[in-house]
């Protein structure tokens, strides 16, 4: 009696303490007493020596203090493994906080001291039967976290025990322990798979998420385990905890893509879509989750709809995606990467929503660039005016990379919507007059491709002031202001390529008036230019000379440039000089100096050289990005833009789904009394969960199952059960193997990374078989 009273009293005291603390915390922050932690954290080194003594002391307070000091040392990156023996002794401490600190310590150092770690195992095993679910779960977590090979079988036993625990939290811990023990010892696979199968049948939505994690890491190919559970999992989806929802959604999506038939549209009637009943069930039960506050859940639902839903459902992803875009900066960065992929495939989905993607000046530069990419995807005849105005604004940005992207976007605009080409050109021409190098150089690069494009397709009759040749002449006159090497090279090439004049009388016959001066300027600055510009200067010289070989000045200029190029430090420049001089050998014997006599080989005539020089590269080099249809949304490499090892790839749809009868479960047929769920353990809660569970669209195929069908699959169930019981190891590893092969043939070729990983698993399981 006294004990109970004392217990109640301490509880009340603790509660009172909480209340007092909340009111006084503010006022007492500056008291030295609350700064105890900091003094521990920044303690002087001589205090370290005491830790050992403190750990051995009989006072709980001393021990706790010592543990805190140890953790502080860990935090500072010191190796404190030499205290291991003393810490292990405290593993059975009565103080919960103390225990947790000991656990943290153990998890970090158990690997280094396997023998000593064994000393603590007994305590944990005892804790596995503790009345408090918290202690049971914690014991299992530490037990599975201690990577000591000797205790593997013990841990497996513990997992089995905890998987049948009454508390869903302990079952959750059991599920999370499975991948760890599997990593340590893959020979336990059959036993673990059977535990996973039990956990997947779990009634409580709380532990499902962790069971899915275990499934994905131990036996991702055993989708057959899900047949019976699929419909139930769909129905409880809404009650699963948020992180569990993410994992479960991904798994269910994978299941549907592997096991169900692809939704099809009948060719004559767009609105009539044929959707598998079970797929519809997943879609309708995941749809409410679009309203989750957790962006990870929303993204997972988006994935389900994007990869699983028939086309008419896809529009549902638009608003949720835009909503989580605004949740935080970090979200914005990630969601934009996914938006880019989605808008590549479905530009029309978002085209009216473009205002929500407009760039803000205070966005991080990567976000700005991503937004520009996405906006460009959305660009169409209806919104191009507004978008073009935006891109022109963005070209004023303070970030160079953003300026480049925006300028290129202007060029792309002109290409996508032909009618705004003139607008784009005039915008770019204004940008060339800018005082900022970056803007000018980018504008030049984009102008080049636009001008080329125009010359190819034939210039429009309107606005003669913006005709391509006028633009080139303007560029030529501004060559001094264009500093960026690539842009300079570009202008030089344009001048050379398009300086031909026909019928117009010019100072030098056949060459536009503005061209020779560009050559003069580039000859003058030749030595200070970058190799890229030098190459183009040489080409320009060759072209101009070719156009008018009779002209004295041009000849001298070209010769000067060639002789500079001949002795340049850069290999490429020297090579180019050699090539060009040989090409031009037929034109003028004097150009190559004295060696002309001994030059052998073919000497081309002027017309031939013209052909080589001018017609070689008239086509537009389109530096368009490859559409990333291989990348799946929700993968890391999409966000980073780099190929990450081991990203999962979604399987392709199967030709035809498997028999839906496999997915029938006893509960579907005969709804029994509500099973004891964690969420509905009290009477009030029963109403709650009833309100919370979704209205289920039961697929017609499964609503009226025939009696004999039920009997037959019950047998199948038995068959599976007996199979797994009797010859556990053999059958399941074989099944695994055959499953793997099936996957391989069905899945995409480029699944190399994954296949490698699977191969490893297979090899190991093969070894285990021989050992048996």
């Amino acid at each position, binding site marked *: 009696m006294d004990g109970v009273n004392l217990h109640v009293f301490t509880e009340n005291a603790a509660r009172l303490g909480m209340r007092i603390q909340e009111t006084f915390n503010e006022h007492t922050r500056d008291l030295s007493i609350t700064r105890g932690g900091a003094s521990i954290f920044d303690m002087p080194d001589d205090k370290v020596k005491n830790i050992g003594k403190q750990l051995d002391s009989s006072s709980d307070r001393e021990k706790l203090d010592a543990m805190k000091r140890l953790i502080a040392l860990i935090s500072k990156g010191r190796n404190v493994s030499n205290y291991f023996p003393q810490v292990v002794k405290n593993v059975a401490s*009565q103080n919960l906080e103390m225990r947790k600190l000991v656990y943290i310590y153990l998890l970090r150092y158990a690997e280094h001291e396997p023998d000593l770690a064994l000393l603590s195992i007994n305590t944990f095993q005892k804790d596995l039967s503790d009345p408090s679910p918290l202690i049971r779960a914690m014991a299992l977590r530490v037990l599975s976290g201690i990577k000591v090979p000797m205790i593997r079988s013990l841990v497996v036993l513990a997992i089995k025990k905890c998987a049948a625990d009454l508390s869903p939290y302990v079952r959750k811990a059991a599920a999370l322990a499975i991948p760890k023990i599997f990593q340590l010892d893959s020979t336990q696979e059959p036993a673990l798979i059977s535990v996973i199968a039990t956990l997947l049948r779990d009634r409580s939505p709380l532990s499902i998420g962790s069971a899915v*994690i275990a499934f994905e890491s131990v036996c991702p190919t055993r989708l057959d385990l899900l047949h019976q559970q699929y419909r139930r999992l769909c129905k409880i989806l809404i009650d699963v905890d948020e992180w569990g929802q993410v994992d479960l959604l991904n798994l269910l999506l994978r299941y549907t893509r592997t096991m169900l038939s692809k939704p099809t549209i009948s060719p004559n009637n767009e609105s009539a879509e044929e959707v598998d009943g079970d797929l519809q069930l997943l879609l309708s039960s995941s749809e409410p989750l679009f309203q989750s506050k957790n962006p990870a859940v929303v993204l997972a639902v988006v994935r389900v709809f994007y990869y699983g839903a028939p086309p008419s459902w896809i529009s549902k992803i638009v608003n949720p995606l835009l909503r989580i875009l605004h949740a935080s900066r970090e979200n914005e960065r990630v969601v934009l990467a996914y938006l880019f992929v989605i808008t590549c495939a479905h530009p029309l989905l978002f085209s009216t929503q473009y205002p929500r993607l407009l760039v803000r000046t205070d966005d991080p530069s990567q976000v700005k660039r991503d937004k520009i990419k996405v906006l460009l995807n959305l660009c169409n005849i209806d919104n191009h005016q507004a978008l073009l105005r935006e891109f022109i604004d963005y070209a004023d940005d303070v970030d160079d990379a953003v300026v480049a992207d925006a300028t290129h976007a202007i060029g792309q605009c002109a290409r996508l919507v032909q009618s705004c080409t003139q607008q784009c050109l005039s915008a770019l021409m204004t940008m060339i007059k800018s005082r900022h190098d970056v803007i000018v150089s980018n504008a030049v690069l984009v102008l080049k491709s636009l001008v080329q494009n125009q010359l190819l397709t034939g210039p429009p009759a309107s606005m003669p002031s913006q005709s391509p040749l006028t633009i080139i002449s303007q560029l030529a006159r501004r060559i001094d202001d264009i500093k960026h090497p690539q842009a300079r090279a570009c202008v030089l090439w344009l001048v050379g390529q398009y300086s031909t004049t026909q019928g117009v009388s010019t100072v030098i016959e056949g060459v536009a008036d503005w061209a020779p001066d560009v050559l003069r300027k580039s000859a003058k600055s030749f030595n200070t230019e970058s190799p890229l510009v030098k190459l183009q200067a040489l080409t320009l010289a060759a072209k101009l000379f070719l156009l008018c070989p009779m002209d004295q000045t041009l000849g001298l200029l070209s010769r000067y440039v060639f002789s500079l190029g001949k002795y340049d430090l850069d290999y490429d420049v020297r090579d180019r000089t050699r090539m060009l001089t040989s090409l031009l050998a037929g034109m003028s014997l004097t150009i190559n100096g004295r060696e002309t006599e001994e030059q052998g080989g073919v000497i081309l005539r002027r017309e031939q050289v013209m052909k080589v020089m001018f017609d070689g590269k008239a086509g537009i080099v389109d530096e368009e990005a490859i559409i990333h249809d291989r990348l799946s949304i929700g993968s890391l490499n999409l966000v980073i833009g780099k190929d990450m090892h081991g990203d999962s790839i979604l399987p392709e749809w199967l030709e035809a789904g498997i028999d839906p009868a496999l997915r029938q479960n006893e509960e579907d047929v005969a709804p029994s009394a509500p099973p004891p769920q964690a969420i509905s353990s009290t009477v009030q809660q029963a109403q709650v969960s009833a309100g919370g569970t979704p209205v289920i669209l039961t697929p017609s195929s499964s609503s009226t199952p025939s009696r004999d069908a039920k009997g037959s699959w019950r047998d199948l169930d038995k068959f599976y059960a007996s199979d797994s019981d009797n010859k556990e190891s053999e059958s399941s590893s074989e099944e695994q193997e055959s499953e793997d092969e099936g996957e391989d043939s069905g899945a995409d070729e480029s699944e190399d990374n994954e296949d490698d990983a699977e191969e490893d698993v297979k090899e190991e399981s093969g070894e285990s078989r021989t050992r048996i």
Partner: protein
Amino acid sequence: MAIDGVIILDASGRPIIQSGYTSFPPGYPILHIDALHKELAKVSRSGSVDPVIYVAPGIGDLPGGSACCHVAVGELKLIASVSGDGELWIPSFRFTEILHDYFDTVSTATLKDNFDVVYQLLEETLDSSGHPLTTSPSALRDIVLPPSLLSKLLTSLPTAAQTVPGRPGSSVASSASSSAFTSPIPWRKLGIRHNHNEILFDVTEEMRAIVGRNGSTLVSNVYGKIDSNARLTGIPDLVLSFKNPTVMTECAFHPCVRLQRWMREKTMSFIPPEGKFVLAEYQYSPLQGALVSNVPVPLALKPNITVGEYGGNFTVTFSSRTMKIMDNVRIELYLGEDATGAQCTVSSAGSGVGSVGGIEGSWTFEPRKKILRWEIPNMHSSGSWVLRGSWTSKAKVPRPAHAFQIYFELPTYSFSSLKIDQVRLSGETYKIYKGVRLQSCGSVEWRW
């Protein structure tokens, strides 16, 4: 979607707290810290660092590298390293929320004070395989006791230490752990008791808008959030209904809200968690039904800027277009990387002397961030102010940002005029005190 580990850096960028990283080479966390420092050094303007940084693989690492996701928590930085397969675990930010929940102010000092609590939190929220475990604050409070004065007192008094431990031979289950993990509702624990039952709702709406060069609103959206603070006994079942629920679209809810009920009746029915939580988020949709429905921006800016050599001049007129008093107006302009200083004067605008109200405000130039900031503590309705001045720059051709950022607050105002109709309680019999507070704020980008 697995997260390799979490590192917390202090204000000077040194790691103070770091999770296990047991299955990774020892250099792995350092690579991530380095990557972040490199990025930070590259970008002069803080806040424009890419929140996801690619980290090239180090020696002995997994091939393919990893990602360093980071988020600022006050003066601290929290790094979550992610590698391997699957999705990016965006919400390492959930951990920052938990930190805020446990410690009122998250700073180097508080974390150092309570580093043992932080370690316990890390342990409980993140499984060593990198999967999130318990992230609901109410469940966490059961497992990890929040730092309290009392517990500090107890540990600092030598006598108290002897009296507190439980009876010998009993399990370690103290008052905290016996109730842990036993509640049928994950977000609410059993046996909560208050003498005074109350639930408070804070409706906060934020406007985000962009105004173009010509003064026309390109986009303006209002995002709302309903924060609640519940102190209720037992298991109360609440129904929150609105007079005008149609102003809310794109709603997102706390897991406690029954989604089907909302879809059916547009009422929020829920069993609240204890303490503070975000009940719902929504977007305000004006009722016109127009395709692009912009909410009017309650202010106007007339910038007149000339960029010359080594600096420039500006005259900016700011005026309010609302009948409410605006608080804490902040107008910022990034003057470019090479900006060195600024000189301004603030004056009242134009002829209407009587109409100008409030305090004229003050300007500052922040040399580190190169931002010119003009602050007006409160702005009366239809008042207007002028900021005239010039700035200097090292660069011959300065490159200021082409937009002002304007932040403002409107206390006791809501853009959507969302009205809570009633709060009905069932499941418990006591009377509750209900309170609603409205407030709005906004951030507007004004281009020039």
